[in-house]
């Protein structure tokens, strides 16, 4: 688009062409625009001229390359001036100086690009640090302040879903034996704030889980796989540590805060981006869960040793279950939710070497256990 006045140097050009929208009709009028010292003057084809101080102009478009410049003024349904020529803004700033400092200056676009890049990099750094350090730290700290009564409610909810009364083993002898094995684990003068409740679920699944607030779920399939009561004690010690260390409560808090972060990041984005972030989230959650497993192993082993139970039971169970599971479909696998067993077995072996000298307590005779564990 040609300016009204052809000057040799567009830097000095003061007269421009634009379109005027009166905020009332859909007709646009061609106007001449002149840059003055303190104001812009606009002249319509019918010869009318009006003036606008630069401060009254609101720029609403023309921030990007190729986009016409649009100024608006007046209230709710403003009038507007649209100038197509990309040389207009540079000329405005050269000729008017800081009177138009609130109007976008294309000369600053390279700086804006750098700042945008910096914002992008900072966003990644902030989001990653929040995710990797901030949220886990806050979640760990906050976990200590979650009242046990809340955890109990939460755990009871989980149990009513995963271990409803009609699915539990009713055999009195089995339940009493499991309770006996368990009571050997907890020291009499223990300061653990939870009262534990063990539910044995009638299912072939070889697994066990801990719900917040002191609830432990044992699938009968797992009990059947134990060769001695000491092996079961190892599993129970492991699950008790999940509860005492409040792993699931921490994971819940962490997940809730990650969700808030994710929604901040994906506020305007579509499902696929959210999917990408969710995959990353799952990956790190798995990593966190491995750490929780290792802690439960270590502390569980300490518990076994302190209770004077033979540590070989716990080690055997993991060793044995590893071989057994190789022939099982995924759902029945203890390892599916307890990853990295090979390294865990060797780690447990190292821990067991620190066992104090002395005789270990035999919980129930192995022959008797073989008989009891089959009933449900």
């Amino acid at each position, binding site marked *: 688009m040609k300016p009204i006045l052809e000057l040799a140097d567009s830097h000095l050009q003061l007269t421009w062409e634009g379109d005027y929208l009166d905020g009332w009709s859909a007709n646009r009028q061609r106007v001449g625009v002149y840059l*003055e010292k303190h104001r812009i003057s606009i002249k319509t084809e019918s010869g009318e001229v009006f003036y606008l101080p630069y401060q009254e102009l609101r720029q609403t478009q023309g921030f990007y390359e190729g986009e016409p410049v649009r100024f608006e003024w007046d209230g709710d349904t403003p009038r507007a001036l649209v100038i197509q020529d990309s040389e207009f803004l540079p000329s405005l700033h050269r000729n008017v100086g800081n009177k138009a400092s609130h109007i976008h200056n294309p000369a600053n676009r390279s700086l804006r690009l750098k700042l945008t890049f910096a914002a992008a990099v900072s966003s990644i750094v902030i989001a990653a640090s929040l995710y990797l350090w901030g949220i886990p730290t806050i979640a760990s700290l906050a976990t200590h302040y979650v009242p046990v009564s809340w955890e109990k409610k939460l755990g009871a909810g989980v149990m009513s879903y995963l271990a409803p009364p009609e699915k539990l083993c009713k055999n009195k002898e089995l339940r009493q034996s499991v309770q006996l094995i368990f009571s050997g684990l907890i020291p009499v003068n223990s300061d653990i704030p939870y009262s534990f409740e063990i539910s044995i679920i009638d299912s072939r699944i070889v697994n066990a889980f801990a719900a917040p607030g002191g609830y432990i779920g044992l699938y009968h399939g797992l009990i059947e796989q134990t060769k001695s009561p000491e092996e079961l004690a190892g599993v129970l010690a492991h699950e008790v540590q999940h509860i005492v260390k409040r792993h699931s409560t921490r994971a819940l808090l962490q997940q809730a805060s990650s969700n808030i972060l994710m929604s901040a990041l994906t506020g305007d984005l579509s499902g696929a981006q959210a999917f990408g972030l969710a995959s990353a989230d799952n990956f790190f959650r798995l990593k966190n869960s491995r750490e929780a497993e290792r802690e439960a192993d270590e502390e569980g082993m300490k518990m076994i040793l302190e209770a004077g139970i033979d540590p070989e039971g716990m080690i055997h169970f993991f060793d044995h279950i590893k071989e057994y599971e190789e022939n099982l479909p995924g759902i029945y696998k203890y390892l599916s939710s307890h990853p990295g067993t090979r390294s865990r077995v060797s780690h447990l072996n190292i821990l067991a070497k620190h066992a104090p000298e002395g005789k270990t307590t035999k919980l129930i005779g192995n022959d008797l256990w073989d008989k009891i564990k089959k009933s449900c």
Partner: protein
Amino acid sequence: MASSACKSCDAPSSFSSSASGLSTHKETLEEIPKTDAPFDKVSPPDVEPEQSLRASENPTDDSDLNHTLTFHGQGGTLLGIQAVNIFLTLVTFGIYLFWGKVNVRKYLIGQTAFKGDRFAYHGTGMELFIGSMKAFLVLGAMTALFQAAPLMPGGKAVSILAFTSGYLGFMLFIPIAVVGSLRYRLSRTSWRGIRLSFRGPVKDYVKISILGGLFSFLTLGLYYPIFHARKRSFLVSNAYFGSLSFDFDGEGKDLFNSFLLALLLTIPTLGFCWFWYMAERHRYYWSHTKLGSSKFKSTVTGSRLLILSLTNILLLIVTLGFAWSWTSIRKVQFNCSNLLLEGRLDMESIFQDAQSATATGEGLGNLLELETDFGIG
């Protein structure tokens, strides 16, 4: 609030300063001192005759029979806007989210042009923030009702009643949010300074939605195309561009056979036949949409829609979502390039007739993650 500033003035083109209430100054050329009258240098006439014919308002310009939409947005720029939005959202603990949404919308709408003139978006982050807070409170109350349902005294009957009313409340919110969102967005969008608006009463849309939902359920989904077209009819025929109304005369029964065919072909075509149905429905809807005496026409085809959708999904998966800006741009580009308005558009008959709207409906729509636009893909 947004009633036309010029409604009160009968002479809109007179530039009288009293009409605006702000300090724009009208002076005739003679009143300008010589030293301050640059236009003297170029007048008379101040515009070359051929330039004037090309650029000024002229009858041939508006009586052109095909009016197209063009989109100038670029993925890189949108990515930059999004990067700044995310950064500011993180450092403001999420508050900037609303301003960020407005930035994106301003860009996408501002890069869209009709007959060579850009659209403009006038919404602000603050009003979206306030609207969303109000919507959050309303939805929060509903959620509380849901949560409290099992704890209600008075036994199971009361609990079920509370749960059902909470559920119905949510169902009711969807049509309310759709209308609220559309009302807000259109009221903040303008072309050549003229605002769009939506003037349909929300209760009518709630009625259509509830009855239509119920019939669709009772007919195992067979009523759905008729239901969908009724919703579309309500949403389009109550939309305005300034004083000029959009009209819609499509009927769902015209789409019924295609819908049935798509239903039957779902399994043999692994669902891909729906792209063709969607394209056909889109073309049908637009061919029954009018603005004044001009008719819209969509040139979307099933194969092009399928290619767009598949390549967009692929791009998003391969880039872990980072191609989002480009896929959004491609979508808008696709919608713009496949839509045109045919027939004479009488600009002289269009005047500003802006309607007020709050952002609460928009906030509800955002919380419920509703999509309210007339696009496809």
